């Protein structure tokens, strides 16, 4: 089957690297804003994470005996590193980025057979392993210190923060919004009073809040998502079902007890929810293959995120939710079969609505 003997002899021009390139292009606004917001340390960590992702990709390809150049330039390794960087606390030490890339590329991707073979989203595996292994470094967020602001660290200082850890980081850092809510709810306060001091809808939408490097801006994530939808890199099924499930559940619980349950506005605008809806959950490799399967998958992530955020020990739950649903994707694919032309959903041929066969007598 080496020589091409069957058509088509035309091609749309789509390519893996083009697809990956479009996703990266869609990430640029969120990324640029995040890097601006958190300054030189963030930029340093970003560079460390991406370059180590590419390095590990090259090593893995070499070990697997695959041709390095075409696979390294397909953009998938770069994208994994990029997505991972977006989910890290922006001032995290360099080794967080390095270990994260190693886990994502070597463990989550290549141990399963490389591009297209992994069961779990590599960036989410890396983020989750890091969170469990290094909870302190992974939950130290800081309020934005834009590059333009007076007390933002400079180029050299920024590198120092990331290479040596903490230059005055402790004094600045704190928890993210969801983390604070979790802590304070545990201390018996009610939601409205907590939110009144911590949550500002405009800031949350724009993203000028404490959080991961590229996930804080709901608006920019949405912008990138729309770009992906318009360029047809992704379909609407996963983001829409994920958002719908979250909105439905949070609205229901919030209307039952607003003192205990966050409303849909806070859920959608905080943490990594919208970012994940467009950039993480939509990962082709780890999502189901049918449109109906994607809807189930997305709704599952939305629901699980709500459950984990509301009742579990961790303040943020998107990563866990994505991984859990990744695990169910093969099952969904086994049960949700597409509707084949001329057949019923069960796969049997349609019966003739009006039979035109002539009987043996005519």
């Amino acid at each position, binding site marked *: 089957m080496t020589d091409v003997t069957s058509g088509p002899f035309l091609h749309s021009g789509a390519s893996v690297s083009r697809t990956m390139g479009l996703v990266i292009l869609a990430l640029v606004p969120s990324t640029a804003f995040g890097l601006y917001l958190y300054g030189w340390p963030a930029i340093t960590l970003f560079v460390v994470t991406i370059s180590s992702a590419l390095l590990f990709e090259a090593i893995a390809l070499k070990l697997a005996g695959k041709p390095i150049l075409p696979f390294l330039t397909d953009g998938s390794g770069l994208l994994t590193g990029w997505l991972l960087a977006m989910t890290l606390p922006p001032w995290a030490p360099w080794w967080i980025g390095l270990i994260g890339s190693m886990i994502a590329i070597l463990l989550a991707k290549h141990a399963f057979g490389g*591009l297209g073979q992994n069961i779990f989203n590599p960036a989410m595996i890396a983020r989750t392993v890091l969170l469990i292994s290094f909870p302190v470094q992974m939950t130290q967020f800081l309020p934005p210190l834009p590059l333009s602001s007076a007390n933002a660290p400079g180029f050299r200082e920024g590198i120092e923060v990331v290479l040596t850890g903490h230059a005055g980081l402790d004094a600045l850092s704190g928890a993210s919004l969801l983390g604070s809510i979790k802590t304070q709810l545990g201390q018996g306060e009610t939601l409205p009073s907590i939110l009144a001091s911590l949550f500002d809808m405009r800031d949350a939408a724009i993203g000028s809040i404490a959080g991961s490097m590229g996930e804080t801006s709901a608006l920019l994530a949405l912008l990138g998502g729309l770009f992906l939808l318009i360029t047809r890199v992704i379909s609407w099924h996963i983001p829409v079902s994920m958002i719908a499930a979250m909105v439905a559940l949070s609205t229901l619980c919030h209307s039952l007890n607003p003192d205990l349950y966050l409303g849909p506005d806070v859920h959608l605008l905080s943490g990594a929810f919208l970012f994940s809806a467009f950039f993480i959950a939509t990962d082709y490799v780890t999502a189901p293959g049918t449109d109906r399967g994607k809807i189930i998958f997305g709704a599952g992530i939305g629901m699980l995120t709500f459950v984990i955020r509301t009742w579990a020990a961790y303040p943020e739950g998107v990563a866990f939710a994505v991984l859990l649903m990744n695990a169910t994707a093969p099952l969904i694919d086994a049960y949700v079969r597409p509707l084949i032309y*001329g057949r019923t959903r069960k796969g049997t041929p*349609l019966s003739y609505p009006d039979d035109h066969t002539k009987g043996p007598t005519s």
Partner: protein
Amino acid sequence: MKLFKIKGGIHPKGRKEATSNKAIQSIPLPTMLRIPLQQHIGAPATALVEKGDLVKKGQLLAKARGAVSANIHAPTSGRIIAIGRFIAPHASGLPGTTITLRPDGEEAWADRPPPLDPDTAPVDELAKRVAECGIVGLGGATFPSGVKLNLRNRYDLKLLVINAAECEPYLTCDDRLMRERAEDVLTGVRIMARTLGVERVIVAIESNKPEAAKALRTITKASGDDKISIVEVPARYPMGSEKHLVQTLTGKETPARALTADIGVVVHNVATAYAIQQAVCHGRPLISRIVTLSGEAMAEGGNFEVLLGTPVSHLVEQAGGLKHDPDRLIIGGPMMGQPLSSLRAPIIKGINGILALGQKQKQAPPPMPCIRCTSCAAACPCGLSPFDMAQRIRSDELDSAVDIGLLDCIGCGSCAYVCPSKIPLVQYFNYAKGSLTAKQRADHKQEETKRLVQTRDARMEKMRREKQEAMARMKAERAAKKAKEEQQKQAAAAAQNADTETKIKVEA
């Protein structure tokens, strides 16, 4: 008219502008015509001529053999100089039995069957004429048209759809035919409709051929024929797929493994309609067809009326030759066509295009792994999951690929067209379908062997039993005989005893 949406499909660039404005031309006779006996699906025709025979134009050269075979006629007058194996226009490049005719340049016609009146001739006669004239589906499927026109015997037909979608990029031969010979085309359509006994006819043309639609409409309007509607369907590949075209027009989905006739619809290609008009009104057998020559490597290209059997090389030369070494030479359209193995191969009934695509490429990069982007599934007009089928075929699970629809694949190539990893999906499917057929054949053979062995065993067993029974019978007979003898002996002894007894008594 209300149209219905079909699932999937793609929008490849039409690339029809290169030839759509070039009128149909004829070309000079080649020095040699190569006429394969296999120009249709079904069994090859049986040659009626021998080497050295002189034949006239339109003379029957080979007779249909079997139910879905077709007659083959001499494209021109001349001498048969060989009957033997010759390279066939097929991907495999394998030769097939071919009649070689050297034209004498006279173009002397043989006696032609008399014209039939499209409106009054008996329908059986019309269908018979079409079969006699060797007409097959000219859209590429090459199913004998006479057989298809007889579907009225088995189905209650409502609608005839004329497939003038011509959805493959580059091809414009049907477009030109409709523009230039609209009247004859419509006569052919009317003959088909009458023969099939349908109430309605739709000529479906992709919206990128407005002039063709206009040409046909002008004539139907002038004749006041309200039975035939000219409908423009969206230019979306594979609109020319029979079942999808019918669904677009009627909203009806043909059940899997059924024919459109099962829902009361028959589909015929537009070029076939023209060929039928020629056969019925002029007694002209199918000895030529219109072929589009196009592609980036073609110097001029255009649409040509070509005698069947013309070597592709002759046609290409007459059309202005090649600009440069093409990347690929294709028979048919670029989506579903086949690579042409040699320019020496002849034009046959099913060939609607010869394409010389692009500039010679160095080795194409190998395909990337599947990233499950599912764009193939989105493009599939049959609702299949090509990525999943390919995965199963790759791990040699052919039966499981069949479970998810391998045999429902129409091979349109939409999946491979959009695949970002450039995986040759159609090739996977063709390979799998091929090995399934081979396996089926092997299974059938095995089954047959098993049956024969079993019959033999049963026969042997029966013989053995019969022998045993016979032996048992003989034994029993012998035993019975013995017993009888014994009995007689005993009886005799008893009698003797009695005698003795009596004697004793007497003596006593």
